[in-house]
């Protein structure tokens, strides 16, 4: 195999790999892309079909003393921008019996399209049969310019569009399907609006709660993990089994007893109820223990012989060696605390807005703004982006940590 061939093959492989990974990344990240772009949209723009990513808003102009949207029409081969007025006009769509589609008159071939009041009803009705046994009756009209009476296939009240500079130029069409003049327009104000709906306060609360839980949990887990991993005291294994078992218990089962406990000590509705009970978890302890048992015993024994006490050993030897595990724990706890939802929902009263956390405000937002998905997406972005940043900052250690503690578990 010659060199050039080899290099070509190498690059070909790489191209395929990047293509596969890129496609997968597109699929994985598309929901976030959608979220970010939607968060900058105006409310009406969200419901467009077919959907489009970029945020648009209509271009308006002042007409008859108010702002009205502009639409683009092609008149005599020339593209003109007309403004939507309030007036409506009923149009009739006429055709002959043989061209009529009785099942779906709108799909018929139309011969004449004109204002309905310019045609004259003959008073006759003609029955046209459709596919199978179905049939429908249609009114016959005298249509100017036509020798034979035509049938009214369907009617529609059309919107009136006028040229703002030349009010004589008028076009009749349906505003919904007409081509609106639009510009790409990022609605930064969505973020102001959403922060104003208590998400600013919730954001600060979430930061405080998350930092509290993370710090506390890392400390207790390091101590607990060390004891479980390295100190062979009596009753340790039984207790460890208990810890392990507790990981498997659906949280839901604890909700009511824990709620009662919080009420008994006066913590309901308080941020502290989101912090203190979550500092002591079996999962974090388990994670640290799994990592600590991989550290060679010899290092520790040497230190013990030198007269170091346990605390010193933990601080000087185990903690520095466990950076990836601690990073993992930090991220897990961070994500858990930031994203936890059911407990805050139940323990922090609805009316107690100053103590809401982000998930809570977000669910609330999704209800009071059910009709404005753009705002919901803005809220989601506010809740989702900070953990992503934390993850990206710490991801190197984190992935090492997950790998180390996960597979050996």
């Amino acid at each position, binding site marked *: 195999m010659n060199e050039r061939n080899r290099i070509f093959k190498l690059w070909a492989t790489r191209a395929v790999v990047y293509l596969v990974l890129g496609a997968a990344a597109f699929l994985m990240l598309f929901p976030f892309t959608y979220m970010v772009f939607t968060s900058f949209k105006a409310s009406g723009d969200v419901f467009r079909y077919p959907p489009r990513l970029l945020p648009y808003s209509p271009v308006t102009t002042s007409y008859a003393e108010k702002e009205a949207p502009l639409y683009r029409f092609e008149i005599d081969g020339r593209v003109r921008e007309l403004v939507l007025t309030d007036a409506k006009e009923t149009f009739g769509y006429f055709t002959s019996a043989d061209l009529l589609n009785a099942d779906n008159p709108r799909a018929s071939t139309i011969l004449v399209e004109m204002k309905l009041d310019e045609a004259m009803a003959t008073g006759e009705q003609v029955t046209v049969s459709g596919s199978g046994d179905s049939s429908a009756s249609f009114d016959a009209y005298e249509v100017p310019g036509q020798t034979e009476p035509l049938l009214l296939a369907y009617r*529609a009240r059309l919107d009136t569009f006028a040229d703002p500079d030349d009010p004589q130029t008028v076009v009749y069409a349906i505003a*919904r*399907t007409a081509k609106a003049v639009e510009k790409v327009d990022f609605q930064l104000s969505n973020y102001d609006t959403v922060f104003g709906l208590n998400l600013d306060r919730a954001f600060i609360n979430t930061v405080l709660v998350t930092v509290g839980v993370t710090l506390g949990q890392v400390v207790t887990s390091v101590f607990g993990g060390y004891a479980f991993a390295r100190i062979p005291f009596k009753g340790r294994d039984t207790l460890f089994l208990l810890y392990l078992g507790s990981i498997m218990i659906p949280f839901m089962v604890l909700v009511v007893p824990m*709620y009662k406990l919080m009420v008994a000590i006066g913590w309901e509705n308080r941020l502290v109820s989101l912090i203190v009970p979550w500092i002591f978890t079996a999962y974090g302890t388990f994670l640290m223990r799994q990592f600590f048992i991989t550290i060679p015993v010899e290092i520790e024994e040497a230190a013990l012989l030198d007269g170091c006490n346990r605390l010193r050993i933990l601080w000087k030897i185990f903690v520095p060696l466990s950076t990836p595990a601690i990073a993992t724990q930090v991220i897990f706890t961070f994500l858990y605390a930031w994203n936890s939802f059911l407990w805050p*929902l139940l323990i922090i009263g609805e009316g107690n807005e100053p103590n809401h956390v982000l998930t809570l405000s977000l669910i609330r937002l999704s209800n009071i703004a059910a009709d404005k998905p753009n705002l919901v997406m803005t809220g989601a972005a506010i809740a989702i982006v900070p953990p992503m940043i934390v993850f990206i900052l710490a991801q190197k250690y984190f992935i090492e940590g997950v790998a180390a503690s996960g597979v050996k578990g």
Partner: protein
Amino acid sequence: MYKRLLIGLLVLALALPAFVVSAPASAQEEITLRWRTRPDNQAEIDVYQAASDAIDAAWEGVSLKYEPGGAETAGYQDVLITELTAGTAPDLFWIPGTDVARFAKLGLILNLADLAAADETFSVDTFYPQIMQHLTVSLDGGDALWGLPRDVSAFVIFYNQDLFDEAGLDYPVDVDPWDWDAFYNAAKAIDQLGDEIKGFGMNAWWANYGYFINAAGSSFFNEDFTACGLNNSGTVEGLTFASKLYTEGMAVPWGEDSEPPFLAGNVGMFFNGRWATPGVLANATFNWDVAELPIGPAGPSNWLFWGAYVINTKTEHPEEAWQLLMQLTSADIQGKVAALGANIPSRAYSDQAAVDAFLATFDGAINNQAWINGLSYGVAEAPLWKGDWPKIDVIYYNGVTKVLNGEMTAQEFADTVCQEADANFE
């Protein structure tokens, strides 16, 4: 000397538990009453906050705290129930009419009969009798009053006039008779306007499919509310018609919230109650109005919706809570709330002036009469005193869902649903 010190220490320590348990109660000069009602959107929250502030400002010695609970999907009931179990629920709260029975049976809400008897200004006759009949059911043979209706509502069709125009249709108010055929044709014509356009939409809870059942002459329960009442041909006729709308694809899929697409201008007709008006008013960018529900094969049909303000059994201030209840249901406050559009007064029944005031809301720009007409023949929503409504609700709902999605025929549903449902009656 030291001996005495030690003994003193001992005595102090013995006294300690007394301090541990008697946490100092903070003295309060003003009584604080907390109350809560379920809002559907921000516009409605603002309405109730304003009402609360108005009462608070005029009331010496009591300060009010209005807590807008979560909307239905944000767990209004879940949170309330957790708080009830822990004893931290508000003094006065709103629950749907269907929940009154089970809350009363669990002893969660106060029987107000004595408070009402002591209050000369109160008269049960000023409220809709169909509702008070459900709110005064006695559990022990004595007098009972479990709460007072916050408001009433009936369904109307919110319809998009622009879509009706585009389809060349006459508005429902101009169609005679506005019956199921006319309704079906309108839905179909609008649905044909485009892929994203739907002729009709309704949200997925009991009242929506219930209308079709009632309008065809059937009913959820038997006459004395002691058994399932769906096992008849009316149920079959009503659900067959409803499922036609869904299986032919002209409706917003059953279960999907129809309000957002309606507000986006993509739905021709949308069933909803008075409570939806503030949201539609604030958000709709198209021309719209409301109309009565179509007349069914068994005649006109509608619901008389109501929810009740009830008082927590554990409130420390039942007297004040009763006064608040009277305030919240007073003609004055109800008029104010009604003027803002969220509800229809529940005690205005015998009061033509209040009806006129209601008709004048929004400067009469929308057809308020549709609600008044709907109420006149609406069937009151009923708390089930002799059965477990949440469980029956789930059984009905799951069956109806299968019918509307075309997985089961209406006939099969009517034949089987009562077997399982009847096990949940006493």
